[in-house]
């Protein structure tokens, strides 16, 4: 662990000097990250390794936050950041024994990264598919620690992979916690699906039933529940507390954000502000229970709970975001979901979604789908988009699949931050939704 030898008590003491009021929020965010990238085999340069570390000092007082960040983990830069956040020359210096992280280890062995393209090609061959596919495989690792004026959080570690596959007809990106044959088969399966639908015509504008596969359902819930219930998003229309108790979704809808139950490699015990991560019911029985909230928003409320503060990196202040969404499974097998959606669309994958926080309007885009015939996914259809308002879409959910899967993980971009997000959800059936 890179930060185990740091003088955490010294950092906390130094930080305590800039805290003047009980309600001040102050912390030091220490970060080390590494990205190992394997580009397509004909690309130069070959293996790409990026390593960085640094820190940020933050102080929130009243309605103002100051953040000073640096790319060097050295005592001088820490003291300089403290001075800039305090906006004053201190009477005393901020003495520190040690702000030297452990040295970086040797370049990591990355056999799983180097062998993954070949594993995908093998999986494509098993499916009798042969087409040109350019793969970029990355391994992401991050270590972080948050030190407050009184407490230091444990060092948290995240490790995951991202894969981008490009073919002449599609670009498919996915986040994975393992790179093994099963993961390679999953990438190949999606590429082959996209191949079969490559010339399909988009569906005519239409309103009716749709079944979303777990991956597409995860994107729907991320955009329509998680983003809609972030404290900063809610604040655009009023006080975030006002959302608590609002019936937003169908009665059976239980949506949870739980970083503590995320896959091992990305599981978190504290958030990026050092606050304990919570199992948070965003919706319970379709009713808003606990919006996503960071320390700054929680400070001004007795209802909102911190623990969902996330930072894309040390140079940006934290903001409330989801980490790992869960939807409680229902009782319907896949065939039963399809049986109730005859003539509708089966949409296994969503490529992106967008929520307008002011109007609540929502667009979810799908690269391809299939028409549902005789309780099965039939002929392919081309790109489609689902439109609606958040509450309408969530009320339109009439069936929840019985099998929840880790699915729909991807990069979430909002407010200049790009974060990995995860989800464990089943398939969903919606009725009366607008697709065009």
């Amino acid at each position: 662990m890179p930060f185990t030898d740091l003088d955490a008590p010294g950092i906390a003491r130094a930080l305590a000097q800039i805290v003047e009021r009980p309600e001040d929020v102050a912390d030091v965010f220490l970060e080390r990250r590494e990205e190992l990238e394997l580009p397509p085999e004909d690309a130069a340069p070959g293996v790409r390794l990026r390593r960085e570390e640094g820190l940020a000092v933050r102080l929130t007082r009243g309605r103002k936050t100051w953040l000073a960040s640096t790319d060097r983990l050295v005592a001088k830069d820490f003291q300089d950041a403290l001075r800039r956040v305090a906006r004053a020359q201190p009477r005393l210096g901020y003495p520190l024994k040690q702000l030297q992280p452990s040295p970086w280890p040797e370049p990591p062995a990355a056999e799983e990264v180097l062998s993954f393209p070949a594993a995908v090609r093998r999986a494509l061959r098993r499916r009798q598919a042969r087409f040109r596919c350019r793969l970029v495989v990355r391994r992401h690792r991050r270590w972080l620690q948050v030190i407050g004026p009184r407490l230091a959080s444990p060092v948290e570690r995240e490790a995951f992979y991202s894969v981008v596959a490009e073919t002449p007809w599609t670009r498919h990106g996915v986040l994975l916690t393992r790179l093994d044959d099963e993961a390679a088969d999953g990438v190949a399966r999606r590429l082959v699906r996209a191949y079969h639908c490559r010339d399909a015509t988009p569906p005519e504008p239409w309103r009716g039933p749709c079944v979303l596969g777990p991956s597409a359902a995860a994107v729907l819930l991320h955009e329509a529940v998680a983003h809609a219930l972030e404290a900063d998003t809610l604040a655009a229309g009023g006080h975030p507390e006002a959302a608590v108790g609002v019936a937003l979704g169908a009665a059976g809808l239980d949506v949870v954000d739980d970083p503590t139950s995320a896959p091992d490699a990305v599981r978190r015990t504290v958030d990026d502000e050092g606050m304990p991560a919570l199992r948070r019911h965003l919706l319970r029985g379709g009713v808003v229970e606990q919006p996503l909230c960071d320390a700054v928003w929680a400070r001004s409320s007795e209802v909102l709970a911190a623990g969902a503060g996330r930072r894309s990196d040390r140079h940006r202040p934290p903001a409330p975001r989801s980490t790992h969404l869960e939807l409680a499974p229902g009782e319907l097998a896949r065939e039963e979901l399809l049986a109730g959606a005859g003539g509708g669309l089966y949409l296994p994958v969503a490529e992106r979604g967008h929520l307008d926080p002011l109007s609540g309007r929502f667009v979810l885009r799908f690269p391809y789908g299939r028409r549902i015939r005789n309780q099965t996914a039939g002929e392919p259809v081309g790109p489609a988009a689902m439109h609606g308002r958040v509450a309408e879409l969530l009320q339109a959910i009439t069936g929840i699949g019985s099998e929840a899967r880790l699915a729909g993980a991807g990069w979430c971009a909002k407010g200049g931050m790009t974060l990995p997000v995860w989800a464990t959800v089943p398939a969903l059936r919606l009725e009366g939704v607008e697709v065009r």
Partner: protein
Amino acid sequence: MSRHETVDEQVLEVVGTLAAEGWPAVEVHWKRGRSRTLRYDPHHQVSCLRREEGWAVRAGDERRSFFFAASGPPRPDAPWPAADGGGLRLPPAQPVPSWTLPADVDEPILGENEAVALVRGIERALDTELPGARLLGAELEDGSSESQLGSSRGVRARFRQRSAHLHLEAIGPDGPVAGSVALETVARAARRFHPVALARRLADRLAVALRGSSPPRDRGELLLAPAVTCQLLAALGPLWIGPEAEARTAALGDQGGRIAGGAVTVIDDGRMAGGILESPVDGEGVPTRPVRLVEAGRLRQPLLAWWQSPEELHRASGCSLRPGWRDLPRPGPTHLYLEPDGDAAVTDLLAGVARGYYLLDVEGRPDVALERDRFALPVCGFRIERGRAAGALSGARLTGAVSAFLHGIVAVARDLTFQPLSGGMIGAPSVLVRGLELRRRN
């Protein structure tokens, strides 16, 4: 750790170390930057001061190569990854035409109070222009950076840059339910932003969004403001950027071989005086220069990086973009713009519109299908009759053939304006276009 104190020496030490290890192609890039960001909304104000520093190595031979990047100053004992993939070639050192560092590069970045005053000034001016309108959010970033490059092929380059970026989001007197409008703008330094001018642009957009409507379908003369033309110019980048550009434009040519109207001249210029990315060399140390890509409607040459035109190096220009130390260089537009007509005022073009539309801004991203020769762009603006505004237009889509757009440009004005798009700066003046259609969006 490095034995040297100056970055110059540290860069060359890493080049020398890797060359001594047997790598024939080695390049070291170092960059340091400082910026202030102010995020402002009705609930909170966040002031960030960032100090960023990092460096990167590209090294390899004819068969394999690697890339390593790290925060902090360059060091020769970094743990290089195993080389793999394709071979690496680096540009040769070339003479750099004389260059004077613009004076404003040394201008200090905005202080916190100045940044707050600027945003509050915009907010006050907005309320004056459109009473009841207010800012929903603002993000202002003002920063400067310095970079150094050294390579085993003799490239030695130092350059500095200065830029400010402002994003504004505003709502009208009816509150958030009626929706919001956003505006992005850049300048070399934040002190160049004019609160009243920015507030007017926001107020125009809000007024149009509040009162505007769209006809189901209509045609007529269209005056496209720079914000609209820049988006189209950026989306049409594949027509003039890269080695495939000539093949792509072949289908757009008329019988005389023109791909656009005679008023269309497109230039890329990494040295453009006053430009945000103004620099004597690009991200690989290749000298920048103005290149005329399209001249009077004819494609003269595409925008090419040195490695995309190895047999005809004279056609290439310094156009490798390298936004940060983590990034590999990639070819792209530097300051790519539609050449303005210094004699034509926008008001002159507007006065000549008997019946048509003045398209002020975009309401979404362009959708361009070059292979089908089609494009669509969500727009807003005003209906024009006899040179005067006759009603607000909103919820419309500008659509037509890409070739019709390019050949339909009949006049350009002198109000050249740049926007940060496609990783570079894309510029255009207002243009008068015929042959396109407006349709109501669903």
